[in-house]
């Protein structure tokens, strides 16, 4: 019997309209855990580097994490992976909500989509019964609207729906997949779904998910619940509000936005507004949120209330979470009322709340600077907020300038020319980032920004405090009950970290310490992404309920896989390295690994080079960021090493620098 997982994937070929149930190899679970890990293995095996994002040969994989459907609190994430049309690299974007557990109860760990349907369809999975159904009547419908219509026509109020909106249908490079209160937004995975002619995947399941050692597993679950309660009663002092308490950043609950509004940049990631958060603004925004927010809501089997039902007067109700609360507001230099209202429309269209506002602010900056002309913007209203609605409508329909902007700032700038690339200034690997512009280089964040393949800092950072505490006594108090560290040396790193003086940034944490810290942070995120665990109870937080010491026990008791800390770390390193190898095969090289030039004012080229050199070595990669033969073999990835040698990316003599290719190739 398989535990925690079902051992069955659903293979759907949309070109031929073929559906198959495929039994998976339990050994793959041991090696790659599940979720992101096993999905990466499938992508490596079946999607060679020649495959373009919008090729029928590109796969779109919806994976439920290994422990989804068990009572492990907060373990409910769907991991969607494919080739991103924007970065041309592997995209893996995730969503919480209710979809992944429902898929498990229906009897499947993954849905693997290939091919393309000539007509718009949706997939209806009801336990053993799986059908491809016509969706032509849903063309152009909003993502939430679609979910509602499908539930009604199937008479299945309990079905969970993951759907795209107009943006996905029109292959907007930053289109999302929406699931009511959650969305998988980064990397343009919604565009791939639209390209495949797939409007939605609808799931209803009423089967059992088994756990291997029930009593032991429940004991672990209670420990986690107890610790969640403890953390609720004991917020961490001395850190910003969203890090003091557990959960995905509590943007729906909190009113105080001084930190975001005064530290993040407004407009096209340009302006810091010190002193913005006045009592008048605080009062107005509090009133706005209170008047629209009907209820704080959770994902499946989780007590944290990270989302909210939002009813902007005069508009349909929708659900929101996290920082999309402010991205539209800040890009448009507007207020919270505008931000919430346009987010409702954007959610129905199904677009990423990080990239979209920035693309629009970028377009207006180009217009103000004469690079985009009145001709390009013909018909644009004169009022600022109206311009954002106008641009959003053009983008998702790919009308006029919207057709260019729909490809994101990097590709749009290339197409527009006339120096537009200087305005696409906030990208990493062609993907728009959070609008942070800071002063002093932070060595930890430098490494995360450079080498992260998850394309979003919030999905890489965590565990280690973001900044030093001013006083040693505070630091000593902090490390006292910091049992989540993999090793006590991390406590020492933190104890000695000072805001000023010899032990301050950028030279402290030292290069070696920074590598160690980043590796720990990244490892925990990758583990979460295999298990389907929410980072809001795990890797994003300092002092989370799930950590390197108890997760192996969850896996042993839950999935029946004999697991310990070393074995878990090695498995995470294995599929993390496989993600890297997959992207290397698609052309990723050191030259792509850099933060936006203006991310920090104070830069240190020599230190930065040393950081990257050392980190690559630490990870078992050569100086180009390519995993070495030796490290691949250590991770049982000989087949990867052989492939990279065959392609001339690695040579037989160890660590020889490879031919430099770039991901800068154009789409047709």
């Amino acid at each position, binding site marked *: 019997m398989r535990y925690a997982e079902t051992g069955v994937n659903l293979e759907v070929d949309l070109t031929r309209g073929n559906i198959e149930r495929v039994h998976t190899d339990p050994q793959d679970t041991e090696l790659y855990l599940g979720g992101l890990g096993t999905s990466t293995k499938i992508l490596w095996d079946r999607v060679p580097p020649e495959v373009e994002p919008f090729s029928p040969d590109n796969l779109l994989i919806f994976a439920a994490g290994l422990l989804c459907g068990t*009572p492990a609190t907060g373990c409910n994430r769907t991991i969607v992976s494919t080739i991103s049309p924007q970065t041309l690299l592997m995209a893996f974007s995730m969503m919480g909500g209710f979809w992944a557990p429902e898929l498990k109860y229906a009897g499947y760990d993954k849905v693997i989509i290939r091919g393309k349907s000539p007509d718009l369809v949706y997939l209806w999975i009801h336990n053993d019964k799986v059908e491809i159904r016509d969706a032509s009547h849903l063309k152009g419908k909003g993502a939430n609207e679609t979910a509602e219509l499908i539930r009604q026509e199937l008479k299945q109020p309990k079905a969970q729906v993951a759907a795209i909106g107009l943006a996905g249908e029109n292959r907007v490079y930053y289109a999302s997949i929406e699931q009511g209160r959650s969305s998988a937004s980064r990397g343009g995975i919604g565009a791939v779904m639209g390209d495949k002619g797939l409007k939605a995947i609808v799931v209803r399941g*009423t089967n059992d998910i088994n756990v291997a050692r*029930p009593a032991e597993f429940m004991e672990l679950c209670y420990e986690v619940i107890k610790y*969640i309660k403890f953390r609720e009663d004991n917020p961490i002092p001395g850190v910003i509000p969203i890090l003091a308490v557990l959960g995905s950043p509590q943007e729906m609950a909190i009113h105080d936005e001084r930190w975001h509004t005064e530290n993040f940049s407004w407009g096209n990631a340009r302006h810091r507004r010190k002193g913005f958060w006045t009592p008048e603004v605080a009062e107005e925004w509090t009133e706005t949120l209170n008047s629209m927010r009907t209820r704080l809501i*959770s994902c499946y089997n989780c007590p944290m209330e990270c989302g909210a039902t939002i009813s902007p007067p005069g508009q*349909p109700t929708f659900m929101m979470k996290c920082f999309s609360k402010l991205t539209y507001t800040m890009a448009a230099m507007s207020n919270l009322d505008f931000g919430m209202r346009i987010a409702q429309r954007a959610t129905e269209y199904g677009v990423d709340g990080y990239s979209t506002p920035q693309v629009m602010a970028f377009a207006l900056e180009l217009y103000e600077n004469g690079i985009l002309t009145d001709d390009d913007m013909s018909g644009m209203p004169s009022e600022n907020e109206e311009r954002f609605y106008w641009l959003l409508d053009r983008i998702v329909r790919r009308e006029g300038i919207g057709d260019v902007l729909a490809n994101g700032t990097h590709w749009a700038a290339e197409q527009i020319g006339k120096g537009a690339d200087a305005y696409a200034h906030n990208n990493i690997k062609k993907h728009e980032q959070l609008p942070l512009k800071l002063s002093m280089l932070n060595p930890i964040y430098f490494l995360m920004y450079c080498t992260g393949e998850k394309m979003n800092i919030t999905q890489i950072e965590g565990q280690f405090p973001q900044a030093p505490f001013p006083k040693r006594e505070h630091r000593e108090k902090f490390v006292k009950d910091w049992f989540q560290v993999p090793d006590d040396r991390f406590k020492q790193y933190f104890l000695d970290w000072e805001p000023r003086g010899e032990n301050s940034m950028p030279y402290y944490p030292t290069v070696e310490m920074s590598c160690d810290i980043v590796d720990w942070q990244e490892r925990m995120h990758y583990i979460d992404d295999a298990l389907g665990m929410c980072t809001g109870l795990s890797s994003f937080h300092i002092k989370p309920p799930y950590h390197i010491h108890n997760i192996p026990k969850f896996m042993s008791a839950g999935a029946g896989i004999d697991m310990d800390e070393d074995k878990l770390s090695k498995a995470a390193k294995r599929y993390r390295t496989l993600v890297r190898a997959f992207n290397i095969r698609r052309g990723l090289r050191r030259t792509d690994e850099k933060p936006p030039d203006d991310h920090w004012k104070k830069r240190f080229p020599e230190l930065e080079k040393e950081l990257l050199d050392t980190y690559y070595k630490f990870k078992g990669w050569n100086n180009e960021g390519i995993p070495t033969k030796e490290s691949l073999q250590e991770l049982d990835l000989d087949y990867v090493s052989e492939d990279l040698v065959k392609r001339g990316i690695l040579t037989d003599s160890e660590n020889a620098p490879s031919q430099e290719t770039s991901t800068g190739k154009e789409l047709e």
Partner: protein
Amino acid sequence: MTGEKKKKIVKTIRIDLDKCNGCRSCELICSAFHAEPKYSSNNPARARIRLIRDPIRDVYVPVYAGDYAPAECAGRDKYTIDGKEYDECAFCRASCPSREEFKEPDSGLPLKCDMCEGEEEPLCVKWCLTDALVLEEREEEVEEEAVEEEEQEELEVGLESLADKYGLQKILDAVARMSMKD
């Protein structure tokens, strides 16, 4: 015949719809607790509590499985409270032919909440960290027979539903076969 007075603990779960966050932990843990062996499997479709949930309309109603009803009601009810319209039969606890709630997904047999007998509190309450579900207990004095009657009633309800599903004759035959084995 007048029986002895006996003390009985009446357990009430206070349900606060405003505090429900819609996470369905209650359904999950109920199904795990009632699995054989205990906690060995998870499947909200087997739960004896259901969350009637429609986020867009802000409808959140945890309902406990009550008695088995062999036939639908003659009429239906539909409540509107504070401007929110609730689904037909939203507050009804019956395992009834009109809906899929409170039936074992495989056999269709009715489910009924037993307040997690043997535990200090029902597991749904224990797992509801937002306190939408809170247990209250009070003591009442009842006639002794009432307790026995209750057990007898439970037995009969179970049999009745089996008879509805398979026909009385098949049940009789099965019971006869089982008693022969003994």
